[in-house]
């Protein structure tokens, strides 16, 4: 009666009964264990009350989801593009590459802006993390991580540190130093520990806390100084690939997207999921809040980007075109929220009119997938990183 299929590739001593059996990986809270099939089945049914079976719980969940969709549909009286008919169409858009940052020897996987609007940190497949002044294109710091595929990096709000992680399953914080006698790697602080790769990380409003997302299906909030886990967020049914913090002074929420095609909004304080949206047809690679905080956009392997309204509690727009076949890896809004920039796996960047739902412009330039895209903090430009080893700043 268990709803699971498995891939057996290990034979050894079960972590529960200690018998020599074929083992499969099993997750309890955030810990990965190896159970034999009997113990795994027992564990799956752990916590069931009388008259409950996994199948009955699953069908209850499905029926509640169905009811939720009905409730959401009741208040849906108009489409976004209808409301947007009153708005002027956008004219031709000319955006060019204004800077090309060359220096990574391998695929660029992630980047983030510093609050000073010109510095960026970028990370790549070969473990290199570089801090650039992208205005002058000078490299200011470089550190080599002990792992490959550094899929996440973030700049601290103060501009004094960076965080990064990837296949090492950790998130490490490096204080930035100009002291020639100091090795940056020496002051490295290991903050987060996950049981699978780190896919995204972000500082919250200060240098003292980091939010991480991981391939182990969880997100977590950590205290940087002590490395203590402050809160963990469970609910995704597969790898979590991205997260974004809400731009609100009063609230304490963030959104995450994962391989289970779900986008979930979380309350940082309680660890609970506040809202969930499941309309994408494939992995969600990127989520980003609309500047007002009332909505967020997502980019997915199903080649669409979608807009979800948090107050109406539903998906309100789909940005797609028949000629766009490859997945969107990364999305971000312009400062006013009128434009959505999305980087795709077909090497292009598409610019969407958020209100009208139409594509405004397509930008060519990268010679391999666009893996990451962020608009600068003051909205004067956006930076894209690609598997072609370069980063480009467009304005």
């Amino acid at each position, binding site marked *: 009666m*268990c709803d699971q*299929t498995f891939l057996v590739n290990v034979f050894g001593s079960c972590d529960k009964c200690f018998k020599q059996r074929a083992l499969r990986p099993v997750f309890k809270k955030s810990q990965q264990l190896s159970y034999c099939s009997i113990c795994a089945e027992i564990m799956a049914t752990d*916590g069931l009350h009388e008259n409950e079976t996994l199948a009955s719980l699953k069908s*209850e969940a499905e029926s509640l989801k169905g009811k939720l969709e009905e409730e959401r549909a009741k208040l849906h009286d108009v489409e976004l593009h209808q409301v947007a008919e009153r708005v002027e169409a956008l004219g031709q858009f000319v955006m060019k590459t204004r800077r090309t940052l060359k220096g990574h020897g391998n695929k660029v996987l992630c980047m983030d802006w510093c609050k000073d609007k*010109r510095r960026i940190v970028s990370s790549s497949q070969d473990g290199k993390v570089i801090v650039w002044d992208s205005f002058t294109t000078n490299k200011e710091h470089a550190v080599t991580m002990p792992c490959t595929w550094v899929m996440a990096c973030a700049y601290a709000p103060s501009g004094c540190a960076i965080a990064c992680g990837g296949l090492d399953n950790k998130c490490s914080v490096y204080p930035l130093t100009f002291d020639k006698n100091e090795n940056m790697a020496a002051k490295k602080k290991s903050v987060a520990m996950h049981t699978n790769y780190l896919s995204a990380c972000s500082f919250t409003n200060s240098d003292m806390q980091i939010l991480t997302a991981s391939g182990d299906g969880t997100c977590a909030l950590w205290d940087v100084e002590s490395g203590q886990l402050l809160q963990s967020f469970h609910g995704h*049914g597969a790898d979590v690939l991205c997260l974004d913090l809400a731009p609100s002074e009063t609230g304490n929420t963030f959104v995450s997207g994962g391989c289970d095609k779900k986008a979930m909004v979380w309350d940082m304080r309680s660890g609970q999921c506040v809202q969930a949206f499941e309309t994408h047809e*494939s992995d969600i690679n990127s989520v980003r809040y609309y500047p007002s905080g*009332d909505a967020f956009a997502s980019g997915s392997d199903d080649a669409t980007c979608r807009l979800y309204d948090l107050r109406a509690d539903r998906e309100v727009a789909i940005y797609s075109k028949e000629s766009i076949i490859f997945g969107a890896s990364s999305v971000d809004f312009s400062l006013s929220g009128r434009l959505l920039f999305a980087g795709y796996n077909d090497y292009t960047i598409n610019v969407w009119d958020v209100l009208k739902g139409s594509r405004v412009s397509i930008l060519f330039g990268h010679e391999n997938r666009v893996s990451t895209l962020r608009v600068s903090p003051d909205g004067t430009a956006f930076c894209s990183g690609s598997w072609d080893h370069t980063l480009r700043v467009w*304005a």
Partner: protein
Amino acid sequence: MAAGPAPSGGRSREQMPHLSKMERVVVSMQDPDHGVNMRSQRLLITVVPHAVTGNDIMEWLIHKYCISEEEALHLGTLLLRHGYLYPLQDPGSLVLRPDETLYRFQVRTIYLAKKNIRKHGALADHEKEHHGQLHRKINHMWDLVVMQAREQLRAAKQRRKGDRLVVACQEQTYWLVHRPPPGVPSVLEQAPERGSCTARRVLMTKNADFYKREIECCRRALGRTRVKSSVSLEAYLKFSNQHRPHDPIMSGCLPSNPWITDDDTYWAMNAPRVAEPTQLRVERWAFSFQELLQDPVGRAHFMDFLRKEFSAENLSFWEACKELRHGGQAQVPALVDAVYQQFLAPGAARWVNIDSQTMERTLEGLRRPHRYVLDAAQLHIYMLMKKDSYPRFLKSDMYKALLAEAVIPPETKRRVFPFMWKPRRSSPSPALLPASASGDCAAAPGGPGGGPGEA
């Protein structure tokens, strides 16, 4: 050989939706009625059946998807790079040429049909099923495909020159796709494996806990108050409209966008703590209370205003609560105590006026201090300022004067001649600056704190 790249790194075809989408494009390109013009093409003295020119492919793509030439070229090149098309001339190049260059389609069905014919129906079970499925799906093409397959087999037997050429080109393309020469990116490269909910790979055991959480989440979601679409969507129009002049990408910025003109004056004039804020910046303070508080200059002026009204302790309290919420875990007890002594204790020097219910709850929570213990009180004071002091500030003479005095920078255009371009000025890294006393930038643990760099 089967068309299209074989997925590597353990990702199944279901997990790569772009492959099936490309296949659909290629199939519709071969539709006899609405597909690309296919004809027998003459290549020097050889006649090659069922070939298409680059031009025809481009035109078809432009027409079918309503895209520009550049985009059609890009899409066609991607199809080529993934092996769905192969060139008959110059097989070393996998870039679509929008001219009379000839191409043919790699169709997986040809492979299967060939196998079927050769072994007289002795396909493996899954291949038979696949064969049957494909037959059903594109039976209008079936005759054409079988014809092509027969012809390829005959060609292999007779080794006619034209067919040898075709086969050679197919093979070359196959190797270009699967083993690209150095310097050419491989389309087969994948990121590290991802677990996925689709069949055959599951990372989590979906146990009782998982479903119970889902059920809880749904129940909570059902209880949410929802807003009508018409209401919430209006908000986007209003927001975009209001912020449009402030969006440099949409409306430009004065004096100029540093990335375009290489002149960073814009950043100097909009530094976090500048003495003379620009007009656009002062206007933004009126958009929302959050905009005002987020801007250090705005917040400082608001603090001055509150001092005149003898309610500055509200803002100070709010800042202290923020520091607690976002501070280090180790500082929590000390900060909570400091806040209590300064703002909440009876007879405190800067006592804040919170309603009795909230005060009671807060004092109760202070027995076991944690970083969220002041949330209720902080929200109360925030709403107080937002509903009361903030509107008065916007109507005040102080704000009106700020608006009037605010700077509008003159526009500077990009200098046309290269020798007149300004060298790009570097700026001191924020990591170098000494710690500054500020409410909004928390210092890095153990390192120098500092605000963002100011040019």
